């Protein structure tokens, strides 16, 4: 299924500064603030607002889980999903327009590229958060609670799990494809599982 976010959420400047690796006490460098403002103007309205998702039953196994679309050996994932009867698998992307904007920014200057990268990361995270909000509402009606998102590459869940995710979600429908190193294109994309604990959804 595909979920559309109604409107673009406001930028979370603290998050963007964090992705820019601007730590506390860095002071206000005039150049940085100007650059950030310019990049935000460029980034406005660029993001795609689609998430594709599906719900799967979770069966604990020795050393891993069976999610029906794939059986995966991962203690960390098993722990993240323990007590969950179901899990939501989803893929979200900020879209190719962001990749193009990053490439363009990077062509102009490395600093600009860094800022645009940070904005892209914040945007796709905002999309994931909004999607989780939607799942939480739906789940709450059924008395279920959400576990934190868990992505391929976290803990001992191998990146190769992406192949199964891509197949199960048909995520090319919202424009995400896997490259040779199992990296997603567009680059500002996220896949994750959210465990649903409680009675059946």
């Amino acid at each position: 299924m595909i979920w559309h976010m109604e409107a673009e959420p406001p930028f979370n400047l603290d998050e963007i500064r964090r992705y820019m690796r601007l730590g506390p006490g860095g002071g206000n460098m005039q150049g940085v603030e100007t650059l950030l403002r310019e990049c935000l103007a460029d980034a406005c309205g660029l993001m795609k607002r689609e998430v594709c998702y599906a719900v799967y039953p979770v069966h604990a196994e020795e050393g891993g889980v069976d999610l029906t679309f794939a059986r995966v050996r991962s203690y960390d994932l098993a722990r993240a999903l323990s007590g969950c009867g179901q899990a939501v698998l989803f893929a979200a992307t900020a879209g190719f327009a962001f990749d193009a904007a990053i490439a363009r920014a990077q062509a102009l200057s490395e600093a600009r590229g860094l800022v645009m990268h940070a904005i892209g990361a914040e945007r796709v995270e905002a999309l994931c958060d909004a999607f989780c909000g939607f799942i939480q509402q739906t789940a709450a009606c059924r008395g279920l609670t959400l576990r934190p998102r868990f992505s391929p590459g976290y803990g001992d869940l191998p990146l190769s799990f992406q192949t199964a995710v891509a197949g199960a979600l048909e995520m090319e429908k919202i424009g995400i494809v896997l490259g040779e190193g199992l990296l997603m294109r567009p680059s500002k994309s996220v896949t994750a599982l959210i465990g649903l604990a409680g009675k059946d959804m």
Partner: protein
Amino acid sequence: MGRPGVLSWMRDRLLFLDGGMGTLLQANGLKSGERPETWNLLHPDAVRKAHRAYFAAGSDAVCTNTFGANLLHHDSAALTEIISAGVRLAREAAGDAANGGFVALDVGPLGRMTEPFGDLPFEEAVRLFYETVWRGADAGADFVMIETMNDLAETRAALIAAKEACDLPVFVSNAYGADGKLLTGATPEVMCAVLEGLGADVIGMNCSLGPSALSETLRRYLETAAVPVLFKPNAGLPHVADGKTVYDLDGERFALEMLPLVLEGARVIGGCCGTTPEHIRALRKAAGEIRPKEIRNRRGAVIAGMTKAMTLGDEPIVIGERINPTGKKRFQEALRAMDMAYILREGVQEEDAGAQALDVNVGMPGIDEKTVLPRVVQELEAVVSLPLCIDTSDPDAMEAALRCCHGVPILNSVNGREESLNSVLPLAAKYGAVLIALTLDENGIPETPQGRLAIAERICARAEALGIPKERILFDPLTLTVSAGADAPAVTLEALRLIRDRIGCGTVLGVSNVSFGLPGREIMNSAFMVMALENGLKAAILNPKSAQMMGAFHAWRALRGLDANCGGYIGFASRVQFSAASAAQAAGVDSGTEGLSGAIGRGLRAEAEALTREAIAGGSEALSLVETEIIPALNRVGEAYEQKRAYLPQLLLAAEAAESAFSVIRSHARRDNSHGGMRVVLATVKGDVHDIGKNIVKLLLENYGYDVYDLGRDVPPERIAEEAVRLRAPLVGLSALMTTTVPAMEKTIRLLRQEAPFCRVMVGGAVLTEAYAQAIGADAYGRDAMAAVRIAQTVEREIGEDTP
């Protein structure tokens, strides 16, 4: 043959296609995750039955069950079997079908993203599609149906492959989002121009949405396309009911939404996801008697970048000339070092300065244009939205660049020489480029306007014989220098007028040649350009970063009544004034207290540049500026960074401000020396495309005076070793972000140890640690860019100690 081909069959009637195939196979037991095309071999009856149901419902043509049949999913023998079975089953189902009975070889996306947005090399994509198409043509398909493509580059790969693999008609259908764009941003106008240029017989859209939701996108096709338009939408939107995915339009409602759009001009119609024989039956019933609407005959050539198209019409355009090494030492250096960042920056700056197309020329001694030109074209297209103008005299380089240029480029150039006509015209015809034609031939440049007109007429006739309409040619009657012949400009101007009035073709000029050998060249150039515009010039090749040239261009547009409310002129003038004022303000307010060093410390690029210029003009010695202002400022920010009082963006901006100061210093120092610092080779290793970290290291190392050779990203070990040896570089820096590419890093280090034992290797990147770096045999681990500078300084000291 016996029966007409599909194109002549559909000349005066609609062509009804089929509906969804997946839906029918799933009803027969196709499981999620199973490859549908394997059913051609495993369950041929089910596939044949589905095709038969569509023919019975009124389809004139069905698409073979080969959507995912390609060499990424099947080996060669299996692919041949699957495709020939696919064509055979559709053919058997057609049998004695009452309607067209055509079989389309269905070609879907590869499932991997093609360059520049993905990692699948473009020519590899072409090869994969070629392997599918020839098998289908061999098996007897009537036409090729490329469908559900959501990326411009991949669509082009498929179409080029289809045209090269067979002589069958090719239909091309794209999947548009609700925003009326492909996933990678191309608009219907871009797609129409690109696909028609490459010779698609039918173009259009399928999948994504229902008929009404796609209607605006369809209308844009009907407005633009000069070939029949295909429309194969979904049965509305999907939703889940009783655990099953269902679509919201049944056959009747689908037909009801389709009917007005058929009346508006869609000529090749069918359905995609969620549509069944019921939908096609209803559509046939509703639209079966409709005579297709005439396709409008359109004038004017279209050029396009990857996301924007532009019609060459009444308004003249500016083609930026900066991407050209002629007479530019810094650009020549960038080309030799393949410093793509420098080249791309020129392009983006030209776009920001108001260029509407970019000339791309990389011709200079020692550069293999056939390799370099396509690379520059491909990388530029990914960062600018403008159409490119491929500028070379080498036909091999021309074709290599045309293949991977995904928009509709201008090809610069053909001329009246027989050799040029024979090699260039077929390329322009095959790839659909707009052509610049120089009015010279074996006898040189005619001295009279009439002589130049005669050559233009001859080129025009030859081009039209190959199917290139005259609208797609821009003639360049050539600018000669006024200091060598006082009447030369008048001849050029008269030739412009004659070509416009007698042939009705557009014209183009590189104006700056007129002032060659004279002082104050821009004054002369801008005056000549205005005269040329008055004589009908349609495209001026100039430096868009020159305020004088762009000012004259905007003023002319306003004075000629082409600029409503002088909006363009006012916008331009206020930009120019604004930047001048703000630079002055910055220099006056902030610099007084802290000078150049302070400007760098605050990350102010324009100010640092202006202050450096000022200091040099005021008699400061370049080297002392470096030692007393620039390096201390960098060190201050670098130390603050190491102590976590400043952070990466500040470090970067300071480095960029320093770089702009250096560029001023270099332009003064360049005359006597080229490179001074120790050579450092940098690369992101094979398989990894993350390069921001590596680029930051590069910027900082350059700031500290090192001579950096950046090999880019995804670089094979062999190439890194080769360059280290060629340059005898004492230091190589390797970067990797992903765990999956660390083995490539290790392999590179091993190869460097063999081939270039004299060099040290530093490594860095998100997944690396000090211990990991040691384990894979690196000499040093650079935690961040400042650490890389420290390593370079250490290596430099050691070399100094080693050398007597």
